[in-house]
C-alpha cells in the first residue's frame, strides 16, 4: 500500500517536472526529487527478495545449463515478438526461470524440464503483466522441441509459484532501466533509448559474465552506456547524480559492469550479432532477430 502511494505521488511529481522543462534535455530538475530517491531505495530493498541464489552462475556452469538456458531465453524473445508482449513481461519470465533453477537444483536437468519450466514462467508472467492472456496451446506453437499437455503445465505453474514464494512482482534490470531512464527523459527521446537499452539488457541476460551483477547494476549500466551514446551532455550530469545516492560497493559494481558492457558492446557491433551470448565458453547462436 505504501509502495503504491509512493509510486503515485512520485509519478505526479515527475509529470510536473516534465512540464517545467523547456527544451533543454540537459536541465532535468527531477534529479533532486526526494520522492524518487525514496522509491529507488525501496526498489533496491525489494530487489534482494527476488534474486537467484548466490553462486547461481557456478551452478549453471557445473550442470551444463549455460547453453540450454540461452536457448530458452531466445525462445522467450521470439515469443515476445510473435505475441507482441511487453519487455517487462519477458524480463519477469527471465527472473522466474533463474530463481526456480537456482532453488530447485535437481541432480539431473534435462532439456525437456527446462522447456516445461519456461512455458510455465512465460505463462505466469503473461497473466501477471499483460492485459490479454494466451492459451497454453498458443504458447507452444513454435520454437520448442517438446510439447506438453495443459494439465502438466498447470501443475508446473503451481510448483513454480510455490518455489518463488508467490513473489511475482520482481525488480528486473528492465524495470530499473524503465524507472531510472524512461520516466526521466522527454517522450520524444524514448524510442531510441528504449530500443537500445533493451538490446543491451537482453545481451546481458544471455551473457554469463553479466549474471554475477544484480539487476539494478545491469539496468543502470545499460542506461549509462546508452546515454553516453545518445545524449552525452545529459549522461555525465545524470550518472553523477545517481552515483551520489548509492553506496560505495554499489558504485564499484556499476563501474565494473559498465566497463564490461562497453567492451561487449563493441565486440557485438563488430560481429553484427544481436541477442548473442558473447562469453567465450558459450557457443554462438546465429540468431538475427
Amino acid at each position, binding site marked *: 500500500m505504501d509502495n503504491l502511494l509512493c509510486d503515485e505521488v512520485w509519478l505526479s511529481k515527475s509529470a510536473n517536472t516534465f512540464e517545467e522543462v523547456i527544451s533543454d534535455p540537459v536541465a532535468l530538475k527531477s534529479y533532486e526529487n526526494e520522492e524518487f530517491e525514496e522509491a529507488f531505495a525501496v526498489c533496491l530493498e525489494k530487489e534482494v527478495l527476488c534474486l537467484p541464489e548466490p553462486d547461481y552462475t557456478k551452478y549453471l556452469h557445473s550442470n551444463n545449463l549455460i547453453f540450454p538456458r540461452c536457448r530458452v531465453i531466445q525462445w522467450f524473445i521470439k515469443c515476445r515478438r510473435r505475441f507482441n508482449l511487453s519487455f517487462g513481461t519477458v524480463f519477469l519470465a527471465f527472473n522466474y526461470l533463474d530463481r526456480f533453477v537456482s*532453488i*530447485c*537444483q*535437481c*541432480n539431473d536437468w*534435462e532439456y*525437456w*524440464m527446462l522447456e*516445461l519450466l519456461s512455458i510455465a514462467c512465460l505463462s505466469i508472467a503473461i497473466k501477471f503483466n499483460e492485459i490479454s492472456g494466451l492459451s497454453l496451446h498458443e504458447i507452444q506453437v513454435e520454437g520448442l*522441441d*517438446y*510439447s*506438453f499437455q495443459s494439465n*502438466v503445465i498447470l*501443475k*508446473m505453474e503451481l*510448483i513454480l509459484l*510455490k*518455489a518463488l514464494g508467490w513473489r511475482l512482482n520482481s525488480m528486473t534490470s528492465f524495470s530499473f532501466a524503465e524507472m531510472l531512464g524512461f520516466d526521466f527523459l522527454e517522450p520524444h527521446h524514448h524510442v531510441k533509448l528504449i530500443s537500445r537499452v533493451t538490446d543491451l539488457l537482453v545481451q546481458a541476460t544471455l551473457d554469463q559474465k553479466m549474471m554475477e551483477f544484480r539487476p539494478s547494476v545491469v539496468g543502470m549500466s545499460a542506461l549509462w552506456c546508452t546515454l553516453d551514446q545518445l545524449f552525452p551532455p545529459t549522461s555525465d550530469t545524470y550518472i553523477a547524480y545517481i552515483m551520489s545516492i548509492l553506496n560505495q560497493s554499489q558504485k564499484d559494481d556499476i563501474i565494473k559492469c559498465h566497463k564490461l558492457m562497453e567492451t561487449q558492446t563493441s565486440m557485438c557491433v563488430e560481429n553484427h550479432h544481436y541477442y548473442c551470448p558473447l562469453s567465450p565458453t558459450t557457443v554462438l547462436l546465429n540468431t538475427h532477430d
Partner: protein
Amino acid sequence: MEMAQVKARARTALAMAASASSRKRRKISINNNFVQIKSLSNATVPATGERISGESPASCCSSNGSVDDENRIIKFSDLEVESTRVVTSTCDCGEQQQQIRREMSLTSELRITNSSSQEVDSAEEQITQTKSLPPQKMPTELELDEFFAAAEKDIRKRFSDKYNYDIVKDVSLEGRYEWVKLKP
C-alpha cells in the same frame, strides 16, 4: 455338413481321375482336380446352404473363371487351406498324393509371399505417416512425476531450512527460530 459335402466331391474327383489311361492324360486330370478343388472352395463361400447342396458339375465349370481373380483367392485363403487339408487326408494313391501336396505347397508359398509383401506395404505406410507428422516429443508420465516430486522436495527443504521447522512431522528443528507450543 459342409466338410462332409467337400469330402464327397473330393472322392468323386479322384474317381474320375482314376479312370484315365495315359500318363499325360493323368497329369492333365490332376490339374483339373486342383482346379475343381479351388472351385469347390469358392463355391462354399455363399451363405445359403441349399445353393451349396444343389450345385451340379456344370455350375462348377461355370465358376472356373473366378479362379483367375487373385483378390478372391487371397481373400478366402483360410478356406482354401482347410479344403486342402481335407483333400489330402482322403487321397488313396501315393504318387498322386505327393504331386498334389507339392502343388499345394507351392500355392501356399505364393500366398505367404503375397501376404508378407502386403505386410511390408502397410509397414511402409506407417513409416510414411510417422515422417509426415511434426515432431511431437513428450516426456513420459514417470519422468514428469519424478521431476515434480524432486522440485517439491527441494521447496519443502528450503522452507524447513529457512524457518527450522518440519511441517510434515510438525516438529521444530535446530536453527535461529525458537518455536513455542501454544495450547488452544
